[in-house]
């Protein structure tokens, strides 16, 4: 099916709220109606037609040709279909996503996949801080689905992760997996300091050990587990390189014993 293509004509002059441009919110709209959708975040109105050239296609699949770090809330709340951005996006991309597929062929800002419940997000570049994490005042972060970041992630990736899988093919910043409740975080490269800080449950897999995990993570030995094979099979299609991490025996650290202590970090032995 031919996708709906929105071609960027000029760089935006203000931050934009792109959450209206999802398959379900544009379903059934004519090109003229789409051109009239407002995106501004200041008092000065910006409509789709002002910034983009829209070419007719099914809104079930949307392609935004061109990006900007001022494109905030791209794919927020989307529940079906696909949305592809050929360029960078700003904060909160894929926040509260409930289904469908979001692809960003560029970098994404903070709170990417924040509170996501289902679906699939692929970021070709880097992401900012708090990947999948909650906004202030929210009880938990991502609760389902899968996110693959081909580049690096900022600090506190997978903060308060509840369920689902986050894969960072590059490195992650400090406090990766902080306060995790459950779920899976895989960092193919290295992670910064305090990985798994105050995690209760859940699984973190690290490609490169980042030195000391502190006294509240206890060494449980080197193991080749069936669970590794299941995780590898689950992520192989989305990140074959990360799946390879799970094909060798890994050291299991349990923690964070400062809290519940039922989480685990797997690192190369």
């Amino acid at each position: 099916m031919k996708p709906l293509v929105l071609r960027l004509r000029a760089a935006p002059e203000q931050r934009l709220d792109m959450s209206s441009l999802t398959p379900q919110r544009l379903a059934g709209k004519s090109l003229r109606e789409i051109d009239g959708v407002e995106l501004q975040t200041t008092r000065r109105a910006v409509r789709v037609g002002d910034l983009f050239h829209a070419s007719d296609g099914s809104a079930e699949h949307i392609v935004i040709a061109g990006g900007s770090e001022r494109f905030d809330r791209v794919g927020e709340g989307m529940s079906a279909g696909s949305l592809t951005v050929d360029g960078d996006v700003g904060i909160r991309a894929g926040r509260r996503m409930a289904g469908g597929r979001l692809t960003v062929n560029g970098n994404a800002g903070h709170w990417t996949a924040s509170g996501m419940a289902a679906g699939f997000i692929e970021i070709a570049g880097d992401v900012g801080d708090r990947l999948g994490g909650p906004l202030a005042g929210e009880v938990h972060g991502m609760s389902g689905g899968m996110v693959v970041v081909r580049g690096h992630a900022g600090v506190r990736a997978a903060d308060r992760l509840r369920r689902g899988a986050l894969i960072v093919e590059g490195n992650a910043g400090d406090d990766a997996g902080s306060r995790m409740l459950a779920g899976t975080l895989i960092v193919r490269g290295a992670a910064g300091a305090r990985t798994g800080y105050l995690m209760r449950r859940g699984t973190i897999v690290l490609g490169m050990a980042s030195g000391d995990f502190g006294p509240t993570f206890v060494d449980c030995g080197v193991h080749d587990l069936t669970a590794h094979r299941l995780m590898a099979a689950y992520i192989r299609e989305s990140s074959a390189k990360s799946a390879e991490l799970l094909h060798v025996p890994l050291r299991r650290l349990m923690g964070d014993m400062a809290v519940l202590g039922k989480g685990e970090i797997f690192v190369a032995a």
Partner: protein
Amino acid sequence: MQPMKLNGVRIDDTFAEAFGMRAAAIVITADSLRWARQAAVTMTGYATSVIGCGCEAAIDRELRPNQTPDGRPGVRVLVFAMSATDLQNQLRNRVGQCVLTSPGSACYGDLEGEERLKLGDSLRYFGDGWQISKRLGARHYWRIPVMDGEFVCEATVALTRAAVGGGNLLILAAGSKQALAAAEAAVEAIEAVPDAIMPFPGGIARSGSKIGAKYKGMRASTNDAYCPTLRGAVKTALDPEIGSVLEIVIDGLTSEAVANAMRAGVRAIVELGAATGAARVSAGNYGGKLGPHHYHLRALSPDGGDHARPGEEET
């Protein structure tokens, strides 16, 4: 009607009468096929008949590493029971005692469906608080720490209400040697049929039963009409030349699977021929009033194309 004879084997103009059952399919994996099979064999022991075992279970087929969820060798086991509750209890107890305990094992559901039986959701308590829940996409596993590592078990498995139990073939031969040869040929052929199992020892039952007995409280007793040593004393079903009878009982996930299994069995018996195998093939029924599934032998025979369709519902 002319007696139907194929390669010297007489095919009775009768049908097998079978019943609706509840069934689950699970995959057991291990580090080697040997240990996957061992867990499956242990789990399906003492599961020949719902009359006395609570369920009927056997290995359906062996699976290559690329056919299992965790990429290890495995076997597929089918478990049949008369009710979802029985199936739930049997599955939990058997997996808990025989698969959980087997070295390196893991256990997964192998049917899709809305209606689910608890498996890992029950067995997880063995972990005494150390069990780990892992959701990967649509599948939910429990990881239970055990002495050789972890036992991984899917939280729930689907059950089917379309399963059929009690498809059967009666193999009548001049002597026990010929009856066994024909039965073995049929078992080998039926083993290749997917979604169907033969729960009796090696797939063969020598003690076919009738419903009820002269003794109070007995649900089943020897099928005297087919006992060669009683032929003069009872209303026998045996011809003078028959000296031994064996039965193959078939349970399938679908009616079609049972029909396919019976068809494969009859073909193998006919191909073996009367000289070294069976003189006659028959099937057990209760007059057609009890079970909704009827499998007519002649329709299932190698040249039975113009007879009634196999597995048709006659109610």
